């Protein structure tokens, strides 16, 4: 198929010459002889390109991220644990990233906490309770949720969730909780669809056995299906968390971006991603602030690698079982 296509296109572009070649079957012979090699070359180079992209991003981020410690001589321990981030203070500027690390982790955990019950409920609904029409309704809903751009989530958060929080809990409404809710809604489709897949993968024989000994539907779901899907459900949650961790735009709009460790979930906070997007454009290449922002990026990368390791560990355990 592919070979024929190439030939016809070539002959179209370059008529007199190629028709001559075609008559003698030269092109066909040439493509036949080399198609195997070229196909291999294409496939291998795609794979290598992808590996190279990952390796180079990691290397680049590591080199840039370590600059603040090697070139600007910031103390790495103070950087990670310090809670004062005042890069533009005239005397004694300080770079303490702990509020952002804390903010990122708490937004992620809270979002997972908000999302998990709803996501698993949806997944059970579309796989166990209302297999046909539940699936038919929820599948498009999930796809729509995935397709909404994060800036729209942020806008809705800013004009709906933030005023709601302000009226009911006081303060500015721009808070850790608002950020977690927005991110929680964003990761809902991811967690739901993976959780649904893992529930579907539970063999029917288990359900039938459960019904056979007289269990109700709810007992079957709660005692048999969910434990059987166990670790893949956790994988779904961790995948959602890794997405929540990297989200920047929507969070930035609703979290308030205050550079301190929040005292409660109704206080404004900041995350690693929001501080990078807020300050990057204002800093000059090679300045200490710029290098410190790259270091925050490196922390993000390291934590996302940790997420990947956790996911691989969980799925490895599942396969081993």
């Amino acid at each position, binding site marked *: 198929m592919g070979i024929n296509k190439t030939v016809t296109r070539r002959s179209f572009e370059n008529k007199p010459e190629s028709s001559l070649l075609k008559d003698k079957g030269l092109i066909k012979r040439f493509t036949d002889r080399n198609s195997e090699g070229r196909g291999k070359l294409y496939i291998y180079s795609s794979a290598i390109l992808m590996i190279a992209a990952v390796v180079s991003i990691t290397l*680049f981020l590591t080199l840039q991220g370590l600059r603040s410690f090697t070139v600007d001589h910031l103390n790495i321990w103070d950087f990670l644990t310090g809670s004062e981030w005042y890069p*533009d203070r005239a005397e004694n500027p300080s770079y303490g990233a702990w509020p952002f690390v804390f903010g990122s982790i708490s937004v992620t955990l809270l979002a997972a906490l908000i999302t998990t019950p709803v996501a698993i409920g949806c997944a059970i609904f579309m796989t166990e309770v209302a297999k046909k029409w539940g699936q038919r309704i929820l599948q498009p809903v999930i796809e729509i949720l995935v397709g909404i751009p994060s800036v729209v989530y942020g806008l809705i958060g800013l004009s709906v969730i933030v005023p709601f929080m302000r009226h009911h809990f006081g303060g*500015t409404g721009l808070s850790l909780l608002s950020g977690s809710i927005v991110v929680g809604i964003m990761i809902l489709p991811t967690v739901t669809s993976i959780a649904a897949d893992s529930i579907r993968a539970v063999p029917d024989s288990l359900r039938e056995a459960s019904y056979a000994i007289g269990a109700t539907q709810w007992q079957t779901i709660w005692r048999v299906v969910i434990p059987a899907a166990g670790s893949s459900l956790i994988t779904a949650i961790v995948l959602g968390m890794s997405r929540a961790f990297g989200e920047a735009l929507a969070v930035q709009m609703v979290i308030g971006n205050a550079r301190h460790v929040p005292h409660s979930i109704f206080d404004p906070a900041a995350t690693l991603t929001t501080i990078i997007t807020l300050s*990057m454009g204002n800093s000059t290449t090679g300045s200490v602030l710029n290098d410190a922002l790259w270091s925050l990026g490196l922390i993000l990368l390291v934590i996302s690698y940790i997420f990947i390791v956790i996911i691989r560990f969980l799925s490895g355990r599942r396969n081993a079982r």
Partner: protein
Amino acid sequence: MKKKSFLAVALFLSLSLVLVLGACGNGSKSGSGASSSSSSDSKQLSGKITIGGSTALQPLASQAAKQFMDKNPGVQIDVQGGGSGTGLSEVSAGNFDIGMSDVFAESKSNIDAKALKDYKVAVVGMTAAVNPEAGVKNLSKADLQKVFTGKVKNWKEVGGNDVKVQLVNRPDGSGTRATFDQFALDGKTPAEGITQDSTNTVRQIIAEQPGAIGYMALSYFSDKSVVKLSIDGIKATEENVASGKFPVWAYEHMYTKGEPSPLVKAFIDYMMSPEVQNGVVKGAGYLSTNKMQVQRDATGKTTNK
């Protein structure tokens, strides 16, 4: 055996690609064609100018660029955002023909300000914006500093209503923050509060949040949703900024690396011409530099012209 050797080749290839990419990243891409335009005939300008940096100056530059391109069909001007820091970095590296900035290049320690030529194309005045429920219209500078450094926590302490103070800051390194800190707070570091980047978001938060205070350019005080704060009894008006009575203002800069090429010079001359200064600059809510009766140097010292 064969597999292993292939893996080695793949690793070697990817590593070499990394090196190549790294080398490319070091920014040898200079002179985006502006120099190619230098024809002696000044009537027929042609070529391409790349401008980038401050998002505050971007709309003004885009509008002026559009008018300039209408007059000179052979010229193509590309106006990008990216922030003041990006503008200064990229013009120093030679990637932008003109770098826009809200702050003096001297204020960024790792930029070689001597290598850059400064054109002050406009002046922007700014002041504190307060939520109407706070009940203040005027603050002394000392009180304003107490509010922003967190010493005053309730508006009634400075003569307002019994409403809690809520600070809205700008991100580190932003030109608006630098100007406000330097000239309204006299270099004091503001206490921690909400931080927002875009002026529209800041205005929305201040308008909705009782007791909120932030700061923004004068042109954004277009309606009554936020109170335009007077400082020491001096109203934040364009006249007071121009006469030097109101201290919180900054230049909008356009920087070129060394002497500009004839084409870039022609555009900057156009920016400084009365047509733009009295038209686009005024329309965008900026003050013309020609109207200023005072001037300021990079250290922040203000003198009469």
